[in-house]
């Protein structure tokens, strides 16, 4: 079955269908064949010997977010999933499909306009166009799109690991390496190879269940993609930060992390004075385009806000 799916144009896996069918109706995706993977035994959430949790690729976003072990140990992930899409969509959308969902860049969706991601070499409609939803970090001259997932921002912060099975066997991909920056190959959203199937997502034991938050800023309070979002997980001992994770959504082609910025929080008292340098480090090199320069200041403020929310949460 996997070999059936090795031609990227000819065949696609279909899981929930909530992104793929939408893109097929728009003629952005035109697969000749669909392989329905819903009968594969990938619908379980199981505890791992190392204290972590394995989320099957076909578990729905809703079942994942409301699972007692996710709610108890990984509330950041639960909160993040529930901030995305709508209840109906989350009931259908799967964990594997969520990782693989494609950008919401308007020009990617509009087949009457050029887009290097949809049609390599045709140009980037967003660069000189209406780029309000586009990225400010890690962009390239070829593509300034963002990855739209909320769930992936939490998975990046939690340092989840993607389990993959393909024609050449099984392998694991850390979240940090799963999605990629556009460079001059924006048609490649991620590092999954043709014919490879996501089987599960593994969460490490460390869940940051005491001090966490997901702050999602968008044009309406529900059922909209993030303009800027921030996932925070902190560990504290005697008022000092001992471990910190920070990931941004809505600003880049992948969930945006800089471990060096996180390290600046460690050993520091949990106070706003600490944040300024962290913000600068995390957003260093950001660049606004005609319609999205507001995202830089929005991100600065969102990071500070999210850090204080995470600290004040008493679980």
């Amino acid at each position, binding site marked *: 079955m996997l070999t059936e799916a090795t031609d990227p144009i000819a065949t696609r896996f279909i899981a929930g269908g909530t992104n793929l069918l*939408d893109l097929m109706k728009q003629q952005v995706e035109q697969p000749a064949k669909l392989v329905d993977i819903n009968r594969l035994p990938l619908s379980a959430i199981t505890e791992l010997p190392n204290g972590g949790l394995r989320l099957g690729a076909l578990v729905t976003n809703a079942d994942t977010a409301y699972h007692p072990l996710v709610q108890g140990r990984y509330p950041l992930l639960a909160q993040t999933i529930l901030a995305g899409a709508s209840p109906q969509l989350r009931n*259908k959308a799967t964990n594997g499909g969520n990782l693989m969902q494609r950008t919401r860049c308007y020009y990617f969706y509009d087949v009457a306009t050029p887009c290097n991601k949809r049609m390599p070499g*045709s140009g980037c409609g967003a660069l000189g166009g209406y780029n309000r939803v586009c990225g400010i970090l890690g962009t390239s001259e070829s593509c300034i799109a963002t990855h739209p997932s909320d769930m992936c921002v939490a998975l990046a912060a939690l340092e989840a690991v993607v389990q993959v099975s393909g024609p050449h066997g099984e392998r694991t991909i850390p979240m940090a390496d799963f999605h990629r920056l556009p460079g001059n190959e924006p048609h490649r959203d991620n590092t999954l190879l043709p014919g490879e199937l996501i089987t599960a997502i593994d969460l490490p034991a460390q869940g940051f269940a005491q001090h966490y938050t997901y702050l999602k800023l968008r044009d309406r309070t529900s059922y909209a993609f993030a303009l800027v979002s921030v996932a925070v997980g902190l560990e504290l001992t005697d008022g000092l930060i001992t471990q910190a994770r920070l990931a941004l959504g809505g600003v880049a082609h992948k969930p945006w992390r800089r471990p060096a910025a996180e390290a600046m929080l460690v050993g520091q008292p949990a106070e706003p004075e600490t944040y300024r340098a962290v913000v600068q480090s995390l957003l260093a090199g950001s660049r606004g385009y005609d319609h999205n320069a507001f995202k830089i200041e929005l991100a600065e403020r969102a990071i500070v806000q999210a850090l204080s929310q995470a600290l004040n949460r008493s679980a």
Partner: protein
Amino acid sequence: MTTTFPINPPAPAALLLPEPGPVTLHVNGQSIALTIAPWTTLLDALREHAHLSGTKKGCDHGQCGACTVLMNGTRINSCLSLAVMHQDDEITTIEGLAHGDELHPLQQAFIDHDAFQCGYCTPGQLCSAVGLLSEGHARTAEEIRELMSGNICRCAAYPHIVSAIQEVMHAQPLRP
């Protein structure tokens, strides 16, 4: 008008389109045998082929909730799923909520609370509300609003929809 740059891969030209084939759906307690193309959405299968036109098509892109139906009791958008993927599922549409002449409590509450104007979103709102109640994650009006956000009402009947749902939520034990 001609385009000077290639913007989209051409559709595979000589591709043989699969013939329509047999698909059996289980809708509102009845089995319905259809002969449909494999790319037919659940929504189009219900409306155009099974002639159950109570389920509405608003956006056809998962953005409005007008097409909401229940799949084994769980609410989904029927526009973003293929009929052929649901042959083992029990589908409930708006036509299946009432028992004979006896309306579903939510249907009665929508009437009592004047929870619609044009009525176009209403079948989706009702199926969604049935799903909301059985999921059991909403307690407050605030939570109902958030967990009904997948259903857009162009007439903005939102406050009345919330109060209709609240009444049923607080009134009685739920039936699926």
